[in-house]
């Protein structure tokens, strides 16, 4: 029985397993040192994860893989162009860009949501075509309206004629690495202020709404926050935190420490103070696993990687934050409504949920997150290819999500991250492997493109297949409705034939 269960599990994860094997093989074939692959990989995780995570909400809301995130990316790019033109730099410039991109993305997301509500059931193809359509409008804006209609006098950004934006915009002196290089000290500081503000605000609102305020709890929170902040004034800690990147080794060690402390604290809290039943085995297993992971760091090959790779802290925090956001959102009323709508629009409607509005909200969330994701991507890459940066965004993000084991109807944070890791590993090593194996890097290049298209085609086909199987053979077709476009045309086939 148990064996069969394991086999079932493996079968469920077939896509993931296939890609793990593929990745391992291509890494071996590429003959690249692991440190190189790991370093590249962690850069790409930082760059791309946010975009992939932005896809999860629409999947849960039943709108499938959101090919419309391209439009969020465009919002970000318009904002980047404007702030670059205005000359804002550094993290301030980055935040301003995000601030500028957000309302645009909200508006675009709203429009996309409206459109998708008109094409229920064909959101994916509609989103894909919409991406191309929006690309046309985007090019119109950047090639002709900027400079042509709106005068922009900036020889650095505009092509010589003054009409149209250059092919690439260098972000080196503006927002390159602006997010990646936020020092940890600043992060802690900002975190402290946010916590304080939240506590005060919460108390204030409760006072205004005449609800009881738990002063003791607020005070304790404040003190704890203050204490953490105070720790950063210890010189040793301060100098450690002054860096903006974290050595992977330290990140792992820190993580293990946190896991251990958390597990033990939880265990003690439940067992000793609340006197509840605790799953001792589970706690123990997690602790042992943590220690084992720590042991692994002593293996030379692993150690080499760990002291080679440096993580941009703020970017990774943003990604973690989005994972948390996705999780928490699904526990709210709104999230529950989205899930309901995603499972069955009919039931949701009967339960008094405004289906169309929920779907639009999901699209707005996704589009805004995608615009932020594209910003993170651009600040890390450092050059902004005006007409190319967005074109493959949806394609690659969706492929990554699917490689992680997600489907058209189900996606989790874990699948997104795993997908990014696998997909981008393949992306890094495939051309190199192609060169090693066939003496032609292009083959690897084409192979990875094929993989990204193929995996999407496969996922879509499997989804459609399942849908047909569920509905059953006899009712697979909705009754033919009179075609709105074709029904009225009076020219018959006969007239076409006589012409020939």
């Amino acid at each position, binding site marked *: 029985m148990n064996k069969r269960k394991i086999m079932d599990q493996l079968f469920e994860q077939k896509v993931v397993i296939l890609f793990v094997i593929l990745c391992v093989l291509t890494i071996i074939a590429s003959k690249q040192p692991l440190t190189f692959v790991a370093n590249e990989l962690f850069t790409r995780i930082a760059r791309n994860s946010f975009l992939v995570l932005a896809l999860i909400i629409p999947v849960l809301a039943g709108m499938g893989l959101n090919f419309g995130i391209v439009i969020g990316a465009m919002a970000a790019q318009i904002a980047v162009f404007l702030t670059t033109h205005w000359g804002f730099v550094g993290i301030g410039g980055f935040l301003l860009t995000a601030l500028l991109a957000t309302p645009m993305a909200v508006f675009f997301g709203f429009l996309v949501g409206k459109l998708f509500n008109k094409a229920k059931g064909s959101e994916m193809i509609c989103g894909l075509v919409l991406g191309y359509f929006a690309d046309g409008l985007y090019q119109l804006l950047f090639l002709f309206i900027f400079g042509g209609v709106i005068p922009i006098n900036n020889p650095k950004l505009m092509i010589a004629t003054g009409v149209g934006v250059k092919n690439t915009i260098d972000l080196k002196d503006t927002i390159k690495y602006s997010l990646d290089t936020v020092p940890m000290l600043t992060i802690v500081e900002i975190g402290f202020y946010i916590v304080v503000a939240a506590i005060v605000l919460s108390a204030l609102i409760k006072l205004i*709404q005449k609800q009881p305020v738990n002063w003791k709890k607020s005070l304790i929170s404040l003190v704890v926050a203050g204490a953490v902040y105070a720790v950063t004034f210890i010189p040793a800690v301060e100098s450690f935190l002054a860096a903006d990147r974290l050595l992977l080794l330290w990140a792992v060690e820190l993580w293990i420490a946190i896991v251990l402390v958390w597990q033990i604290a939880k265990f003690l809290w439940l067992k000793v103070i609340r006197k509840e039943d605790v799953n001792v085995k589970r706690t123990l297993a997690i602790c042992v696993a943590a220690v084992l992971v720590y042991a692994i760091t002593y293996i030379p090959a692993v150690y080499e990687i760990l002291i080679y790779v440096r993580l941009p802290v703020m970017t990774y925090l943003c990604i973690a934050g989005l994972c948390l956001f996705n999780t928490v959102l699904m526990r709210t009323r709104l999230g529950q409504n989205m899930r309901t709508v995603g499972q069955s629009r009919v039931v949701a409607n009967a*339960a008094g949920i405004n289906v169309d509005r929920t779907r639009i909200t999901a699209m707005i969330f996704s589009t805004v997150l995608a615009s932020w994701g594209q910003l993170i991507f651009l600040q890390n890459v450092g050059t902004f290819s005006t007409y190319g940066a967005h074109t493959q965004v949806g394609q690659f993000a969706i492929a990554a999500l699917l490689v992680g084991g997600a489907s058209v109807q189900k996606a989790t944070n874990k699948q997104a991250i795993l997908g990014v890791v696998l997909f981008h590993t393949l992306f890094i090593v495939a051309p190199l492997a192609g060169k090693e194996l066939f003496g032609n890097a292009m083959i690897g290049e084409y192979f990875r493109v094929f993989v990204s298209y193929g995996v999407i085609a496969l996922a879509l086909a499997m989804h459609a297949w399942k849908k047909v199987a569920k509905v059953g053979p006899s009712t697979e077709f909705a*009754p033919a409705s*009179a075609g709105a476009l074709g029904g009225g045309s009076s020219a018959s086939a006969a007239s076409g034939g006589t012409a020939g």
Partner: protein
Amino acid sequence: MNNRKASDKGGMTLERSYVLKMDNISKEYSGNRVLKGVSLQVRPGEIHALMGENGAGKSTLMNILFGMPVIHSTGGFEGTIEVDGQPVKIDTPVKAMELGIGMVHQEFMLIPGFTVTENIKIGRELSHPNLVSRLVGKSMEILDRAAMKKDAQAALDTIGLKLSPSQKVGGLPVGYMQFVEIAREIDKTGIKLLVFDEPTAVLTESEAARLLETMKVIASRGIAIIFITHRLDEVMEVADSLTVLRDGEFVARREIAETSVVEIAELMIGRKVEKLVEDQGEDTRVLSDDNIAVSLRNYVVHMPGELVKGVDLDIRKGEIFGIGGLAGQGKLGIPNGIMGLYTASGEVRVNGELLDLSRLGEALHHKVAFVSEDRRGVGLLLDESIEKNIVFSAMQVNNDFFHKYGWIRLHNGSATRRHAEEMVKKLDIRCTGIRQMAGRLSGGNQQKVCLARALTLNPEILFVSEPTRGIDIGAKKLVLEYLVKLNREQGMTVIVVSSELAELRSVCDRIAIVSDGRLASILKPDDSDADFGLAMSGGLKQGGGQRAG
């Protein structure tokens, strides 16, 4: 009856304490009156059965009660509704919900991927406020799963269902799903009236029995129940009173204690005075039990919603045979299975030849034609011309209407036109011309096109399913008369499948009543109303003895 007492109590305080009083309700859909001055009164804590044939107006009445958009987008209705003695205006489903009126749907409004708790609390989740929700709004509140689970458990306990609230609904047996639906309605605060729309239709016998028990429990807590059903035995078992509708008209309101099964059956069927078909002169047909056109043995059809669960039947050559019964009982499955539209098994013989049911078009090649009940879905190519619709089957089955050039067959336009013109004239199809799109025709004319298509095949046996559904009285008469004419003049065996008993009784030689996927009995058109009523309501099973043979 253990809740007789409740109804007695209701009787004492009769005047002031109707929980629901619908008075003189009328409703018109684009000139077609579907409800004519119907009244309905329900007392608190009583189970009130609402009965009637298909199309009697039950669902329209319930749609009005729930303020469904379909009512208000078509001009509203006439009459008054009182809840707890207060006149109310129910214009949206939300309003109905607020007034404490709930519905247990026939199709489950459940999400398989959700837990029982989530399904019970759907759209009405409990949640904690937090900082963000205080700023942005209630939708950002975090769900309080523990409290939700507690509520769900309480609702499940109320109806006595032993089920873990954290179980996924997807894996539950069908019978349990119904109970989850009920638990959801019970969980709504201030629920006063629950409508059960044919709740036992999808249940097994033991599940149905449990459901009825549960209904009594709910009623004993003071919640009134409107019980829509066809099954007389169930009504006799649980209901306190009943209202019968027929053709959109109020027929009677009775206390169960003061009525009998036979009386209810008669009330439901009623005697129709209209004569649908003029006498067609002398009947010179010779019908013989030795000359069988269609014979079914152990015949099973998997048509969703119209399952046929094993029918043995012989239809004589040259007769007009009727198949009747209520919707969902399986009568429609019989012709659909023979035509190969749904998977069927068993033995089907046409003129003695065995049909291979797995082969598409097998029946067509045995000179059997079919006019489907689903005109728009199965019967017609809506975007094609009338002429194309008329000749299509004959082209595909008999290779008619083609020019032949070597091995190539090309559509013969002029022959098509001639034939279509003739059919239009013969059947009096009202159209702007034979090139008109079939989708633009009225229901009656569409039906005539379907009939014309079937006749173009030159069939020996014709199945006509719901020949008069949704068409006006003039067309109805013409269609039925034409069927009789075909039968008398060409000796065609005609099998009419219909929900309208009156029309079966006016044209058929014999009528088989199908109930619960099986043959209930075969009756003569002039058998009594009570016989028909009982056969249709599954109250009396006598199929075996009366099988034609």
